[in-house]
């Protein structure tokens, strides 16, 4: 350890691959036929997706009565899943935008993939509030301000409407950011391919990009501007999602700690998900020297950090409940930890706070099986966090006569399984249709790719 020369920046790409080799490696999944493993994986995710589709069809045909939602727990699984999936998306923007602003070069290997996961997670998330409106085909009428016969406008002071704008903006900006990053790669693929149809597709999608430096100059500025916008945007999205709860007056929801706590939780679960999927990707496509063990270790450090932030928020909620002296508040939190849903609370607490502490050990941070299991548990814990927040507060509101226990139904379960099916199906299709690593960005950080004595 003592032999590291700290005056030299460590390379983020192991070895010194030739640039043309990188082209071949990254575009290999696009040029080759998928193997049997891919089809098995796709079969599993499509089965999950079908289960979800059946649940969704039944929900649309018979109505939302098939769900476990009751009075007073009107939010139930759809909102839990929505918050969970939006949270998963946050790691992608953090990696692509915030780490870009901090000039963290290790992000280059994983940024494209993480951004892709952001887009897929937001698509998955958006389904839930839309079907939760009950008649999703009318959702646009409920959610968007448009001139209508009743001369009514939507309520711009409602956090639920803020959500509509936040999530749709987040999706649009993430998508544009992703596409801008893809343009030079499409151009590289266009010039590599000998297939006629692929050539047409890549010519269209690359828009005729010429790798011109007169373009690179503006392109880099745009990338910086987009990163600069995406950073406050990603913070705003989960802040606004937390407003859905925090602006309500329900005990256990009405707290000012929610925005930072939700953002930390989102980054926490998102990193865990990205880490999970990258472990497979780097192995299957032989990207071990691009998505290095160092990169994974850095991600684990961020999981540890955000896990402790979340743990701090859990404890601080109890402290504030006691310190405020507000009885319903104290009751709400005691009920969370020791009430009907104590099991959910302690699953959440141990998965999110205790288990990530193992990442203090370097051996655990660099062991693939360990980090994989821990990250899976983190996501279990984070799903239960949203369950605990949504359900425990609603099921025990101010009026004891209206208390009720929330029990999910089979349809709820099928929709949850289906959401994982949709997400992983999109991820699998992504790995075979687009370069999962940014070719241009990785080339720029390979050793010797920049002028040695550039006098800039």
């Amino acid at each position, binding site marked *: 350890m003592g032999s590291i020369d700290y005056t030299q920046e460590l390379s983020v790409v192991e070895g010194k691959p030739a640039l043309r080799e990188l082209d071949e490696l990254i575009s290999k999944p696009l040029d080759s036929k998928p193997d049997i493993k891919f089809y098995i994986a796709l079969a599993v995710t499509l089965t999950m997706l079908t289960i979800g589709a059946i649940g969704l069809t039944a929900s649309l045909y018979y109505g939302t009565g098939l769900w476990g939602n009751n009075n007073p727990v009107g939010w139930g699984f759809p909102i839990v899943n929505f918050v969970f999936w939006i949270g998963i998306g946050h790691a992608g923007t953090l990696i692509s935008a915030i780490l870009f602003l901090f000039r963290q070069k290790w992000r280059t290997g994983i940024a494209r993939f993480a951004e892709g996961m952001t887009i897929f997670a937001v698509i998955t998330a958006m389904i839930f509030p839309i079907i939760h409106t009950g008649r999703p085909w009318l959702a646009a009428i409920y959610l968007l*301000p448009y001139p209508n016969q009743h001369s009514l406008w939507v309520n711009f002071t409602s956090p639920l409407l803020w959500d509509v704008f936040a999530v749709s903006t987040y999706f649009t900006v993430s998508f544009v950011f992703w596409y801008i990053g893809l343009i030079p790669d499409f151009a590289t693929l266009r010039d590599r391919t000998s297939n006629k149809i692929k050539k047409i597709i890549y010519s269209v999608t690359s828009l005729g990009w010429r790798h011109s430096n*007169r373009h690179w100059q503006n392109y880099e500025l*745009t990338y910086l501007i987009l990163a600069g916008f995406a950073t406050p945007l990603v913070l705003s999205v989960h802040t606004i999602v937390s407003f859905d709860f925090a602006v309500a007056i329900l005990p256990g929801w009405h707290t000012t700690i929610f925005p930072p706590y939700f953002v930390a939780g989102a980054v926490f679960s998102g990193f865990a998900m990205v880490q999970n999927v990258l472990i497979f990707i780097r192995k299957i496509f032989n990207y071990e020297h691009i998505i290095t063990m160092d990169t994974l270790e850095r991600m684990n450090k961020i999981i540890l950090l955000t896990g402790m932030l979340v743990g701090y928020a859990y404890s601080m909620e109890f402290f504030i409940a006691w310190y405020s002296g507000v009885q319903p508040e104290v009751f709400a939190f005691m009920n969370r930890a020791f009430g009907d849903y104590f099991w959910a609370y302690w699953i959440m607490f141990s998965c999110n706070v205790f288990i990530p502490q193992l990442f203090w050990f370097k051996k655990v941070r660099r062991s693939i099986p360990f980090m994989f299991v821990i990250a899976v548990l983190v996501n279990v814990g984070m799903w239960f966090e949203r369950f605990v927040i949504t359900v425990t507060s609603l099921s025990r509101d101010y009026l004891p006569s209206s208390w009720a226990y929330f029990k999910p139904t089979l349809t709820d379960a099928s929709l949850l399984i289906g959401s994982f099916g949709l997400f992983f199906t999109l991820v699998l299709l992504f790995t075979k249709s687009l370069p999962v690593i940014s070719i*241009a960005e990785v080339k720029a950080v390979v050793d010797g790719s920049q*002028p040695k004595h550039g006098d800039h």
Partner: protein
Amino acid sequence: MSEKLFSYTALFNTPDEIIHAAKAVADKGYTKFDVNTPYPVHGMDSAMKLKTSKLGFVTLFAGLGGAALALLTMGWMMGIDYPNVIGGKPFFPLPAFIPITFELTVLVATLSTVAFLLFFFFKLPNNRHPLHDTNYMKNVSSDKYGVSIEAEDPKFNLEEVKSLFESLHASVIEPVYFDEEEVNYKPKIADGKFLAFLAAVAIFVSVSAYTHLNYLLYIVPFNWMAEQGKLVPQSTNDIFTNGSSMQTPVEGSVARGFIPYAFKDKPDEAGKFLVNPLIPNEQNLAVGKNKFNIYCSPCHGYLAEGDSRLRGQFPNPPSLHSEKVRGWSDGRIYHVIVEGQNVMPSYSSQLSREERWAVVNYIRVLQRSLNAKESDL
């Protein structure tokens, strides 16, 4: 391949060489030249003597525009067009407008920046540039670094450019020509494929719009006349002097078919003088049964025994099979239907005159069914 030269190009193997080459080309005073590299090379902008990008201004103004758009729209909708007190907030609740203002600022700024970048600054999409599909482009998009000096440059001289590239030790030096076909290509409107594409788009858009508007949303133009140009009672209009669409009838006017009831508050006279105009037959008994079951049976019971279906929520009426009611004339029963009695209200608005008599006939049938005459047996 035509003979018309677009540019002369040189390929280099390392980033150091290309920086050096770009500097040399810029120092010679060439302006119409470009450097193509597989990724942005540090220090190239100053080597090529490029001016600072103006793109930031687009972002600034678009962002400000987005913020103003959001605030003005929300303020107009919630404060002017349809003022509504929500949660005790003022008509222009600035703090509650901040989230959406922020989101729209970001949205408008990023979309405009990207749109300006691609379509205005880069003039993309452009797949017809002469550099496309050349050996030069295939190399610079992978692992080589290239310089291209255009023939249109005022200082362009074939021999000079060649010797400049040679002195820079370029690995490959080659000319790029305009593609004659691409240069002379003119898009035709009346192209079969293009027209088919347009037709497909038109059909898709119309069918999906029709289905969506008609079957899912029921909005204009498929709202099934929910919105009509007629005058509705509470609306205003310019036709009448008092401006109201709903006018009171002229004094003394009588509604169509209206016949005044002569026995108001005179039950005995009604019993004496009113004569049942209907001879009981299958037709009017069926009408009577139908109307009795709808309007009378909830309290009187299906068999008129006073066995209400209302489970004590309304006082039960006496049986219609009593000595007293059986002794009443048809006119007397008719009077009760018209005027009501005790807690029973008038049914004159629910039943027409004929229907009332039909109900009376049906009541007689019910009465006979419990207290049949010898002759009925």
